[in-house]
């Protein structure tokens, strides 16, 4: 097994907990704002690790740029959407969860 393959494998395996955390957060967190939080943080890191892992396997700069672009787009879209949804939720009178 090549070193690059090893690193890819490791990175991919590392990305998994983030996706799982995102999903679990979405499911288990008590209110909208918490879910928003879980989703954006964990998920983007997860995708970032996947992209990193695939970049190691890439054989040309073009591919690396495409992967990076995809990741950045998801990042920006995710952040903006999270912001918009939170703002809308606040305007519409969602109450944050309190213990």
């Amino acid at each position: 097994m090549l070193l690059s393959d090893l690193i890819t494998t490791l990175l991919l395996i590392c990305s998994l907990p983030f996706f799982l955390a995102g999903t679990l957060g979405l499911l288990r967190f008590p209110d909208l704002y918490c879910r928003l939080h879980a989703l954006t943080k964990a998920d983007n890191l997860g995708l970032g690790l996947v992209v990193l892992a695939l970049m190691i396997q890439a054989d040309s700069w073009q591919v690396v740029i495409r992967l990076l672009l995809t990741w950045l787009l998801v990042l920006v879209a995710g952040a903006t959407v999270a912001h918009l949804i939170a703002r809308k939720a606040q305007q519409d009178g969602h109450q944050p969860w309190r213990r």
Partner: protein
Amino acid sequence: MEPALIFDLVLLLILIGLAWLLLASTDLFRAVVLFIAFGLLLALAWVRLGAPDVALAEAAIGAGITGALLLVGLGRLGSTERCRFSRAPLTFLQRLSAPVLVGVMIPSISLILLLEVHQLAGTTPGRQGLINAFLDVSGSGHGVTAVLLNFRAWDTLLEKGVLLLALITIWSLDQARPLFHQEDISPQLMGLARLLLPLVIVVAGFVLWQGDQAPGGAFQSGALLSAGILLAILVGYSLPQRWQGLSLRLLLAIGFGVFLLIAAATLLYSGYPLQYPEHLAGSLILLIELVATASIAALLAAAVVGGHPPDDLSTPAAKAPSTSGRR
């Protein structure tokens, strides 16, 4: 079992489950969100089946147009089954038809088909060979594009007609109303749009350009562009009034019109509609794709807006697809 097969199995189970849930759902918003998820997973299925062209189209439509279309429609319709009138009592035949159709016909048809369809797994391999043999003279290096714009271009011509016809139908039904409120566009949203719009145009151009050699083409590119236009409308751009008359109509009709003209010209020239001269085939296909992309983008965006531009040009402009997303 190998992981690929498990992946397929899980994907299909989720798809069928989603279809069931969304069709049985009492809450319509939930149904629409489930349908958006269905579109996402359908794109994965097309990828698994080795049809990236279709996956591209599904991605561009499913993520952009369909979601917006359904959400706007849902907003305008409301999600309850209400009706002011009492329903007419069912006639005997209507009473009979529901259980017969739903209880007997549909299950039996699906069962017969399911039992028979497995025979098909191994038979005839399709037309790859034939198409590859003619690919050199088709003017396109990609099989699907060659089929769409040369071998079966007649279908595509009529399909472009269906698109234009759908728009005329929508225009005949209603006048456009503003899709969104103008106020409170957050700066983050504007920033997102300013970042995304140029990228959408670049990627759409890329998808169109590579359709000659690889998956991609006019429809995928047009659908992507129309999602871009939609985004522009979402952040408050609108088509200037002086563009809402003939120029908008020209833009909408040019894809179908040019295709028709080429069909007529080839019919006059060679006696066969859409028989491109061999040395011109590549350029003609490119021309058709370019105008078709512009038209499809405008048509789909206008379909989401859902109505003809106001006849009376003195009233404040209702929203119409923005050209700002296109330049």
